[in-house]
């Protein structure tokens, strides 16, 4: 009986999903706001990557909200796990092959993450992706070395300073221009590393913030294993 009801509900949901997606043109018609972004983004923001320009510039306030949500989630997790976690990770030590490989891969993964968020306004990716990649690299080290530790004090400082940078840049835009996150730096030539005004500054801040937060979350969770 329960299974029949579940299948019926799924069929109804599936029917509506099919109805929505079957009429959705993929890359054919470009109208309204999408057309506007594709035609004017490079001219207005100087960012070669339109997605980044939308996330950080046109919808920059939403991004501040997203970063806040992530911060609250990480803080909440830390608060819940505070009494339950031990001082050390008690995982079994990994084999020599895993240890050596992760030692060699770790700097490269962190470098890739930094590359992704520094070049956020030029190539695909940005602060969120770069931060997640850096956290993945740290996770590699967490799982291979029992005594590899990160300082939670340093993580807190990085997180706070990055968040403060984001808000300060936005407020400077409000003071000098008309709106929050208004661009106040020269745009430069599109496709240059130093271009697009405040977009790279904000995405580097977001990259540091997300990387530090996810690293803290992983450390907290791994320390609960006894």
């Amino acid at each position: 009986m329960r299974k029949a009801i579940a299948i019926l509900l799924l069929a109804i949901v599936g029917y509506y999903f099919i109805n929505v997606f079957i009429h959705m043109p993929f890359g054919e018609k470009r109208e309204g706001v999408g057309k506007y972004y594709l035609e004017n983004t490079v001219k207005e923001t100087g960012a070669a990557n339109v997605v980044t320009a939308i996330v950080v510039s046109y919808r920059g306030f939403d991004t501040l909200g997203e970063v806040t949500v992530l911060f609250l989630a990480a803080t909440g997790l830390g608060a819940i796990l505070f009494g339950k976690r031990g001082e050390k990770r008690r995982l079994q030590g990994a084999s020599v092959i895993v240890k050596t490989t992760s030692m060699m891969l770790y700097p490269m993964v962190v470098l890739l993450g930094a590359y992704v968020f520094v070049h956020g306004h030029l190539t695909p990716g940005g602060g969120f992706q770069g931060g997640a990649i850096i956290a993945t690299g740290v996770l590699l080290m967490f799982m291979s070395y029992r005594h590899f530790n990160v300082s939670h004090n340093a993580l807190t400082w990085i997180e706070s300073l990055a968040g403060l940078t984001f808000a300060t840049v936005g407020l400077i835009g409000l003071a000098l221009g008309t709106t929050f996150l208004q661009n106040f730096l020269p745009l430069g030539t599109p496709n240059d590393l130093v271009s697009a005004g405040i977009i790279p500054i904000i995405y580097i801040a977001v990259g540091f913030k997300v990387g530090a937060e996810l690293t803290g979350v992983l450390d907290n969770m791994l320390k609960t294993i006894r």
Partner: protein
Amino acid sequence: MSWLAVLVLVLVVVQIIAALFSVWQKDLLLAALGTSAISVVLSVLFYLLQAPDVALTEAAIGVALSTIIFVIAIKKTDRYEE
């Protein structure tokens, strides 16, 4: 049918197989690996659909971080489903 459409179709079938594997598998560690396989294929699909930004997110979050959260949960509870 173009080769791209065939490739997308093959990838979607692989995803469905991995999803069914994850649902029916009694060993939860293997089921978690099945969900991460879905994420790998999904990130390739996003790349083929010209959304490389989303593909990067899916590769980092879906494959690595959410799988490790599943693994931690399994480590703290039971490995086998009754």
